C-alpha cells in the first residue's frame, strides 16, 4: 500500500524559472490498485514518479510504502521495493550484457552474497520460463547481448526485470509510447497480466485516453501539480473519452492541451 500526503516540490525556487511541479498531492493506493494517470504537458506526472522513486527529495510531504516512510530513503534502497519503467527502452537494460545477465542482476540483487556466481542454473531456468511466457522467443537467446534486441523486446525485458524481484509498487512512465502500435499492444498485455498475477499496486502514466480508461481500475488526471480528477468503479466504467474531456474543461476552464495526447487510436 502506498500513501502520499501533502507532497510538494518547487524547482528553481526564488528564480525566474520557479516552477511548482507538485502542489500538495494526497494519494492512497491499495494492493491490487492499477491507476492510470493522464495530464497535459508539465502537469507533474513524471515529477510525482521521481519523488516516489527517490530521484529527488520533495520540499514537503511524506511517502509511505507498506507503512514505511521512504521519503528520504536513498534511491537504490527503495528500488528493491519499487519497479520503474520509462518511455525510453534503452534506459532499463545494459546493452553490452547478455539477456541472462541482465535478468539475473534484477532477480538476485540484494539477496545474494556478492561473490556468489551471478548466473546460477536454477535462477537462469526460472528466468527463462518467465521470459517464455512473453511469447517473443527471447528465452532461446539468453546468451545474446541485449543491445541487439528491438525496443519492444528490451522494454518487455525491462518489465520482467522490474517485477521479477516482487516489488511492492510498479511505476510505468509512458512505457509503451516509443513502441510501434502492435508492439505497444503486446507489452501492455504483458503488463496487465503481471500486475494481475502479482496483485501489484501500479501507476501508469499514459497519453492514450482510451487505454487510460480501459486499463486498470482507477484513473487520475493531473494539472499544475495537483490531482484534479480521481475516478474509479461504477462512474469510471461508463465513462467515455468525450466525457473525460468535458470533465477536464469543466474543471479547468480550458481544453486539454497535450501535444501527444491520443483521443482515440
Amino acid at each position, binding site marked *: 500500500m502506498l500513501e502520499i500526503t501533502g507532497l510538494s516540490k518547487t524547482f528553481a525556487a526564488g528564480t525566474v524559472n520557479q516552477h511548482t511541479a507538485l502542489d500538495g498531492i494526497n494519494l492512497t493506493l491499495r494492493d491490487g490498485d492499477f491507476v492510470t494517470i493522464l495530464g497535459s504537458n508539465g502537469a507533474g506526472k513524471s515529477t510525482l514518479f521521481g519523488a516516489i*522513486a527517490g530521484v529527488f527529495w520533495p520540499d514537503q510531504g511524506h511517502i509511505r510504502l507498506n507503512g514505511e516512510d521512504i521519503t528520504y530513503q*536513498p*534511491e*537504490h*534502497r527503495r*528500488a*528493491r521495493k519499487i519497479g*520503474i519503467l520509462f518511455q525510453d527502452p*534503452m*534506459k*532499463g*537494460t*545494459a*546493452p*553490452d*550484457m547478455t539477456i541472462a*545477465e*541482465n535478468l*539475473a*542482476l*534484477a532477480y*538476485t*540483487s*540484494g539477496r*545474494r*552474497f*556478492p*561473490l*556468489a*556466481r*551471478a*548466473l546460477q542454473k536454477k535462477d537462469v531456468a526460472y528466468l527463462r520460463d518467465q521470459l517464455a511466457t512473453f511469447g517473443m522467443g527471447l528465452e532461446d537467446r539468453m546468451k545474446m547481448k541485449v543491445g541487439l534486441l528491438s525496443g519492444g523486446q528490451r522494454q518487455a525485458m525491462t518489465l520482467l*526485470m522490474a517485477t521479477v*524481484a516482487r516489488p511492492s509498487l510498479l511505476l510505468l512512465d509512458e512505457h509503451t509510447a516509443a513502441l510501434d502500435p502492435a508492439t505497444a499492444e503486446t507489452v501492455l498485455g504483458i503488463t496487465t497480466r503481471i500486475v494481475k498475477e502479482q496483485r501489484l499496486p501500479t501507476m501508469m502514466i499514459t497519453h492514450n485516453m482510451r487505454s487510460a480508461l480501459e486499463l486498470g481500475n482507477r484513473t487520475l488526471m493531473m494539472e499544475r501539480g495537483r490531482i484534479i480528477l480521481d475516478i474509479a468503479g461504477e462512474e469510471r466504467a461508463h465513462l467515455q473519452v468525450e466525457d473525460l474531456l468535458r470533465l477536464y474543461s469543466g474543471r479547468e476552464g480550458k481544453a486539454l492541451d497535450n501535444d501527444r495526447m491520443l483521443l482515440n487510436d
Partner: protein
Amino acid sequence: MTLFVGSLQLGLMYGLLAMGVFISFRILNTPDLTAEGSFTLGVAVSAVVTVAGAPWLGLLVAFGCGMVAGAVTGLLQTKVGIHPILAGILTMSALYTVNLAVMNASSNVSLIGKETLFQQLFAALPGLGKDGVRLLVGLALALITLMVLNWFFRTHAGLCIRATGNNEAMVRSSSINTTVMKILGLAVSNGCIALSGAVIAQVQGYADISSGIGILVVGLASVIIGEAVFGRRGVGVGLVSAIVGSVLYRILISLALSTNIFPTYFLKLISAVIVAVALSLPTVKIELQKRRIRREGRTHA
C-alpha cells in the same frame, strides 16, 4: 628470437597493467588517470619490501596499495562528486608524494645484490634458465590474474560493476549502489596496475619515481591492439585480448626500435599516436561513409 622472447616476457608482465586499464576503460567506461600513480606505487612498494627481504610479499602488498589508491579515486568521483578525469589526476598527483615517501624520499631504489623473486627462482629452477624463469613468472601471474578476474566479473558483485559501467541510469533505478560499485571497480583495476608495477620493478632490478609516466597510454594501446585482433566481445575475451595486445605492443615497439628508425625516446610519442589513431577509426569510418553517400547522391542527381 631474443627480441621475441623479451617482448613476450615483458608483454605478459605488462599484461596485468593492460587488464587493469581494460577494467577502468572498457568495463567502467572511464579513462582512469590514477594508473600513472598506482603503477609507480606498485614499483616503489615492491622494491622496498624486496629490499626488506620479502619479494613475494612485495607483490601482494603492492596489489593492496594499488586497490587503496583506486578506492581513493573512486571516493573522489562518487562521494565528493569530482569529475572522473580530475579525480584521477588528483590521486595521481598526490601519489607522487606518497611514492617518494615509500622510497624514503629518494627518486630511485636499486635492487642490485638484493634477492628478488627472480633471483630466488633462478636458484630454485636452474634448468629453466633466466629467460625461462622470466617467462614462467609472467605467464603464471598473467594467467592467475586472468582467472581470478574472469571469475570475479561473473559473480554478482562483478555483474553489478559491469552494469554500472554499461548503463548507469538503469543501475541507479535498480537496487544496486552505484557508488560502491565504482569504488570497487577502480580498486580492482588499480590493484592489477600496481601488481604489474611490482613485478616490473623486480625484473628490471630497480624502482624509479618516473616509472609510471605515460603508462596509461601503454595500457590503452595494449587494450586497443588486443581489440583489433579479437574484436570487442565479452569480459573474458576482453581480458585475454588485453594480455595479447600487451604482448603485441611490446613486439611492435621492439621491432620499431631495433630497425633504428626511431631513437628510444620516441617510445611515448609512438604509443600516443597508436592510441589516437585507433580511437579515431570509428569517426574516420563515419566520415568516409558520409563522403561516399554524398558522391553517390551527386552522380544520381
